[in-house]
């Protein structure tokens, strides 16, 4: 039996009391009345917002480093990792005098995410070796035109004076996991396989 709440159906003649139905109706009305005074499940949305999970996967952000330079180096790993092929980018070389804008010598001059294609899986975040792209708890707003869903660098890169907090998802364990992953392709066996071997 899958559940302990199921009852075996028996087709038996109803007694007179059952056929009058009034006791059953009164019992039902007692149940509905008890719900009248119960706490309501509704959340008054614009006034009250339900808390998001700290690792909610919403609209992406391209992070800057502490000095304010863009972290992204246009390696394209996020675009490769993306199962929905939502990310496109064009790489450019950093010119002299742009050191305060871009951290590495190569940067993305165009970086676009198509929010209609994106499935918010977070694989771009996993793939990024530079801690540049993160998903945040912001919801992608709806618009009337398809073109407006293609987010360029103007919407994705965080503002210098208005940083996006991602500390809740970039915990120590996450960092260690990513550090391990970085050299995983050099290893012949994974740690687990090694342990099993010995």
């Amino acid at each position: 039996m899958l559940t302990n709440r199921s009852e075996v159906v028996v087709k038996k003649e109803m007694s007179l009391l059952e056929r009058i139905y009034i006791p059953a109706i009164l019992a039902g009305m007692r149940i509905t009345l008890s719900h009248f005074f119960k706490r309501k499940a509704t959340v008054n949305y614009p006034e009250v917002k339900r808390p998001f999970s700290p690792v909610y996967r919403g609209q992406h952000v391209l992070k800057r480093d502490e000095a304010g330079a863009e972290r992204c180096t246009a390696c394209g790993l996020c675009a490769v990792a993306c199962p929905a092929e939502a990310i496109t980018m064009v790489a450019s070389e950093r010119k002299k005098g742009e050191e305060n804008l871009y951290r590495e010598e190569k940067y993305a001059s165009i970086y676009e995410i198509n929010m209609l294609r994106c499935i918010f899986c977070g694989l771009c975040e996993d793939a990024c070796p530079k801690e540049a792209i993160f998903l945040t708890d912001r919801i992608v707003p709806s618009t009337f035109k398809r073109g407006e869903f293609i987010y360029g660098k103007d919407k994705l890169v965080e503002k210098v004076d208005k940083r996006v907090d991602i500390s809740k998802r970039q915990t120590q364990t996450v960092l260690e996991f990513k550090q391990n992953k970085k050299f995983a392709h050099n290893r012949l066996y994974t740690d687990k396989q090694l342990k099993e071997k010995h």
Partner: protein
Amino acid sequence: MLAFLIYKLILVVAVFAVSLVVAMYSTYAERKIAAFLQDRLGPNRAGPFGILQPLADGVKMFMKEEIIPGTSNKWLFILGPSLAMFTACMTGVVIPWGGTLTIGDQQYPMQITDINIGILYLLGVVSIGVYGIMIGGWASNNKYSLLGAIRASSQMISYELAMGLAIIALVMHTGTLSLRDIAAMQTGWHWNIVYQPLGFLIFIVCAFAETNRAPFDLPECETELVGGYHTEYSSMKLGFYLFAEYINMFISSAVISTLYFGGYNMPFVGRFVHDPNVLAVLGSVFLFAKLFFFIFFFMWVRWTLPRFRYDQLMNLGWKILIPLALFNIALTGVLMYLGGRLH
């Protein structure tokens, strides 16, 4: 004579306004009660706690495009909701809304007119009410509307019989057809429900059927008939149909309170308050308290019980309620014979 006319006019306007306002706020109450019974909050955006919601709904109804189907019978199509609304408003005339006010040496009973056959008038007008639904449903020239109209007429005819028989037992007990006399008889705790419990049960079941309320809302039946007789209606014509239903509910609640629950009579209060005018006003308040309880009861039942199947509806009406009502008449007769009069 002029004073009499003005007093009657004021009373007519007051009763009309009160029934409209109560019907308006019944729509709000229905949505709120439905929500609360289902662990929701209900409308709470228009004004504090959403109390302006009926106004918003009314404005919406008036602003909607008015569509009269090309294949419909235009005059009957308009006549349907008008008749439904008209008959719904007509029933409030004979109900005693309170005792008698004495101003100067003039007596002002709070009842528009005390016809000595008030109950017959009530039954008659309620029977005309079915024509509004029937004509509207037929004139729409739509199969869902027609099915709804057929269901409405057969349902109302079947349940009117049992309702009439239940009232006959009541009339045997009270010995009068005037609603005012019936209300006046039930002083203190001598409510008719005590003497006619079975009759009351039959009457309230029939009242549900007559007002097309769940579990007898087969004529509307959103799930099977796409709204039944008002499928083709839009704008305020639809609003009138829905509004008429709520006015009917208000009037049925008033009739139930008057016939079986003492009307404007209050137990005990007469011992503490002696001014007859204050007593009369208090009586009206008390009547409305009972009435609101019954409106709540109507809604409570609607959001508890599922709808009847058509054959179940007919079985209940013809095979159970009518024999039961006949038995009730016989029982009342026997008891009256044994105990002189029941009082």
